[in-house]
């Protein structure tokens, strides 16, 4: 209690000496970086949980690419469950000449069994829960759709061969799609109207769903029954597994962002350690004096702990508030990426994380020196040279290491990932530190050739070498990450776009009925499109590899199982496109026609661990057959031509029912007759690649904003390290500047020297950042995007300019009071 009184009393004075400010700043930034990410993740996953039951619009859902047997519904009704059906497909909706690719959902009367459909009387009007489903001849269309096709509630739109009236604007429906369809606006119609549209024909792409709901026990029992009776290709979904992918994707993104924010925490911890060291240095006398006056060791420890804990508490508060603000901003930037309109408020969990972070950083980085401080002997009041016993190594290192590793574990909750991150980070930082040290050393060796101010500045850098390296690394890291993100976002993606040939197809057409194929292609050509190859598209399932059923197999890669079990799109072709290259085996020769062979893509081979000669068994439309792998193709997917993992020789599948697909390029100045096409061929689905690419780009841009804002904290943390380092050297600087001025240096020369020091430091950090970003950019270009990396001059310019400006600004701000002080005052030790 008495310790607290004294701690509080001295706090306001202590504040002036600066290191408590640095400590507060460092802890606040660390807390803000972690909580901002924590809040975002907690809100997004809470929203997902909330949605989980709505996502299905039911308790249990059976989905299939083929029409479902009515037996399922009958059995469910027999068991007293509620049922409904929903059929989804993609098609173009017209209003006059205006059109829009739309996710069409045809539903039966009791839809939705869970959740509500909300509608508005006009597009973008006030939403209210709907009763029932659209009446026959009517549809509910999303406002987005109405806006693009220039229609209003009350207008007629055409879908395939049918004309239907828009009776409401659709605002939300529970089971909003989860893939491509998500990008398209949706439209709800009555299932009775579906046949008149002609959208559904044999082999066309549709997704059939049966919905079931009821009491928990009945649903569970029915699930067991349905799992036992379902056909291959039919998927049972329930609440627990409805959105595992989305959830794990959010989880992974959250972890990545948290790890990114941990980099800031790490830098902040360096600042905390520096501030604590200075706190100890400045309090040696005071603690010895307090002991002389009768304070026990525990008491002096309590005083300094109380002060630092108070700072930590304030930092946890301020940091959480800043994190909350950053989170709101971040979610605002990301709002279009999230399917949900309103997010639930964040949980308070991140605040616990904030408090734990502040405490962990203090305990790891400040407590050991404080323990040290409390050991300073009272005799120091008589003999100034007596200090505390030297800090034992384990005490200096282990608490810090435990604090950091503990925080990393708390964030990732995965030992292997934690170990990987720790080792990776350690190696990376060591490399950076090595480069930084070399740079600092090199700079020190050139100081003979520059003017007096620069010489003084550079001499300072070389003398405080350890601090200089830490600062160069701290800043270099922050700037580097930002440069790299900008590089990937702009240059590399642009490069990739530019690397595509100008006449790359910009429209995809699938679901072309075989009978319409010639007419469709002819129409396209007449309209001035450059049509690429047309390939048949046949659906099948893989049943066995080398005679062993899929269930018994384990695969070379994680995604192998996905590759093997999903519905396969099969094709056959005589010609090998220019975008395909045989890397093993041989392409079809005339004598291969009709032989049981198949050509697989390299992805397929790698994921399933296949080799030439392996036997693959398929089930196509109920017919089983087995083929041998005759060749492996390397496919250039970004040619935007129709391409398939599996290509069969001609003569094998010709008789099987399927549809055709093709792609086409319309020159920019050609009027695109898509509306006319779709009217004539209603079952054909059209994909506008330009708009899809733009959407992908938007997503990438927004994700980059999120990552960048997290790394902005890294830069702030770098600034804090700079402040801390300047603090540590403050007395020294004050003394030097006084001596220089006593020797006759003008205030301006001293100032120029200090500025030179920080500009040099900044340039070194910028150099390191540009170097790192270039290397990382090269690796990303080569291994991730697979484009040629062209050397960028601007990142060097930006790196150097940003480094010099930031560090010189920060350093100047931190040292101005020292430099401006009169020499007399400085020598008096005031």
């Amino acid at each position, binding site marked *: 209690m008495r310790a607290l009184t*004294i701690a509080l009393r001295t706090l306001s*004075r202590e504040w002036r000496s600066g290191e408590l400010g640095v400590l507060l700043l460092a802890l606040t930034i660390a807390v803000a970086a972690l909580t901002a990410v924590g809040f975002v993740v907690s809100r997004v996953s809470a929203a997902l949980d909330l949605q989980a039951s709505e996502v299905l619009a039911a308790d249990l859902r059976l989905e299939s690419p083929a029409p479902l047997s009515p037996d399922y519904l009958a059995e469910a009704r027999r068991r007293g469950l509620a049922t409904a059906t929903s059929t989804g497909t993609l098609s173009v909706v017209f209003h006059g000449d205006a059109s829009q690719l739309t996710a069409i959902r045809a539903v039966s009367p009791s839809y939705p069994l869970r959740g509500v459909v909300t509608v508005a009387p006009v597009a973008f009007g006030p939403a209210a829960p709907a009763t029932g489903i659209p009446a026959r001849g009517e549809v509910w269309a999303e406002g987005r759709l109405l806006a693009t096709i220039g229609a209003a509630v009350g207008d007629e739109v055409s879908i395939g061969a049918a004309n239907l009236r828009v009776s409401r604007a659709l605002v939300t429906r529970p089971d909003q799609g989860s893939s491509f369809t998500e990008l398209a606006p949706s439209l709800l119609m009555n299932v009775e109207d579906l046949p008149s549209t002609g959208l559904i024909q044999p082999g066309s792409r549709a997704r059939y769903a049966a919905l079931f709901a009821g009491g928990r026990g009945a649903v569970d029992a029915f699930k067991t029954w349905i799992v036992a009776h379902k056909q291959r290709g039919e998927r049972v979904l329930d609440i627990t597994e409805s959105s595992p992918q989305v959830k794990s994707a959010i989880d992974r993104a959250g972890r990545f962002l948290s790890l990114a924010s941990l980099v800031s925490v790490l830098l902040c911890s360096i600042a905390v350690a520096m501030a604590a060291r200075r706190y100890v240095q400045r309090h040696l006398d005071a603690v010895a*004096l307090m002991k*002389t006056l009768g304070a026990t060791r525990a008491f002096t420890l309590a005083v300094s702990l109380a002060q630092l804990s108070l700072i930590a508490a304030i930092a946890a508060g301020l940091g959480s508030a800043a994190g909350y603000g950053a989170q709101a901003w971040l979610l605002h930037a990301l709002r279009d990426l999230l399917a949900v309109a309103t997010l639930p408020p964040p949980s308070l969990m991140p605040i616990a994380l904030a408090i734990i972070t502040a405490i962990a950083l203090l305990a790891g980085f400040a407590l050991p020196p404080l323990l040290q401080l409390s050991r300073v002997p009272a*005799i120091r009041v008589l003999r100034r040279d007596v200090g505390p016993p030297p800090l034992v190594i384990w005490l200096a290192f282990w608490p810090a290491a435990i604090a950091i590793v503990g925080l990393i574990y708390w964030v990732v909750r995965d030992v292997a990932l934690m170990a990987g991150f720790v080792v990776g980070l350690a190696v990376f930082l060591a490399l950076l530190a090595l480069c930084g040290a070399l740079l600092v050393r090199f700079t020190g060796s050139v100081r003979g050739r520059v003017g007096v101010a620069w010489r003084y500045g550079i001499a300072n850098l070389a003398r405080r070498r350890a601090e200089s390296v830490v600062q160069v690394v701290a800043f270099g890291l922050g700037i580097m990450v930002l440069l790299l993100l900008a590089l990937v976002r702009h240059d590399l993606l642009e490069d990739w776009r530019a690397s595509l040939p100008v006449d790359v197809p910009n429209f995809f057409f699938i679901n072309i009925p075989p009978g319409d194929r010639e007419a469709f292609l002819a129409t396209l050509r007449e309209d001035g499109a450059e049509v690429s190859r047309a390939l048949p598209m046949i659906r099948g399932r893989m049943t066995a590899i080398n005679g062993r059923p899929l269930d018994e197999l384990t695969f070379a890669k994680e995604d192998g199982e996905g590759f093997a079990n999903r519905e396969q799109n099969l094709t056959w072709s005589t010609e090998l496109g220019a975008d395909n290259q045989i890397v093993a085996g041989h392409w079809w020769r005339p004598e291969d026609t009709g032989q049981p062979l198949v050509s697989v893509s390299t992805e397929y081979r790698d994921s399933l661990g296949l080799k030439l000669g392996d036997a693959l068994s398929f089930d196509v439309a109920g017919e089983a057959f087995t083929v041998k792998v005759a060749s492996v193709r390397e496919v250039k997917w970004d040619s935007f031509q129709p391409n398939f993992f599996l290509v069969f020789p001609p003569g094998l599948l010709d008789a099987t029912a399927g549809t055709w697909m093709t792609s086409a390029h319309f020159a920019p100045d050609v009027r695109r007759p898509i509306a006319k096409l779709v009217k004539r061929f209603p079952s054909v689905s059209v994909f506008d690649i330009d708009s899809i690419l733009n959407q992908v780009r938007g997503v990438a841009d927004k994700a980059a904003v999120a990552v960048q804002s997290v790394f902005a904290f890294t830069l702030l943390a770098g600034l804090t390290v700079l402040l801390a380092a300047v603090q540590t050297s403050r007395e020294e600087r004050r003394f030097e500047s006084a001596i220089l001025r006593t020797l006759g240096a003008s205030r301006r020369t001293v100032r120029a020297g200090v500025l030179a020091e920080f500009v040099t430091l900044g340039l070194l950090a910028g150099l390191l950042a540009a170097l790192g970003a270039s290397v990382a950019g090269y690796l990303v270009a080569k291994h991730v995007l697979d484009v040629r990396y062209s050397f960028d001059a601007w990142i060097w310019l930006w790196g150097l300019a940003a480094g010099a400006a930031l560090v010189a600004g920060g350093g100047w701000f931190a040292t101005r009071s020292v430099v401006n002080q009169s020499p007399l005052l400085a020598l008096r030790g005031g």
Partner: protein
Amino acid sequence: MSVLKAESISKEVTSPEGPLTIVREVELDIAAGESVAIVGPSGAGKSTLLALLAGLDVPTSGQVWLAGQNLTALDEDGRARLRAERVGFVFQAFHLVPALTALENVMLPLELAGRRDAQAHATQTLERVGLRARTGHYPRQLSGGEQQRVALARAFVTRPAVLFADEPTGNLDAATGKRVCDLLFDLNRDLQTTVVLVTHDHALAARCGRALHMDGGRLA
């Protein structure tokens, strides 16, 4: 009645040239209310002896009794508590806590000893040394003489049994030094405090009841 008693205390330290005895078999007995000066050449071991007598350091051999307690039998915290109750200090370099005001500096030992009326007491003592008007000032806003008077007030505020001073006038000019000394002896007389001081100042030594000469770690 003796308030401070040393029985054959020695202090040995290790130096680069091997072990070094800086205080050698010192015997000492000081009665309550006495004032004693320790004089001698620089490096004689005066400050070391003072530290041993005050319990700031422990002797290598021998024993010290302070206010009836055997210092050598106490641990560091025990000695600290004893100091809080019975001992006051004045140093050559003033040693005020820079983050505390004059008043708060004077209150500090009272608070460490857990006394209640700290503020009233401290204000009174500051008045006693003529600094009533400067209570809210921080050390760096005070002159050297004023700082030493605050230190003096802080030393006396607990009414200690023994006051130790190591060259209390060493950093002051003659006139200011004399004022501080006057104050010291006034308090010594009024409060019946035992004073043990180390000094190079002959005038100051002469005002003490007894002067002990030290050389090469021994009392002559």
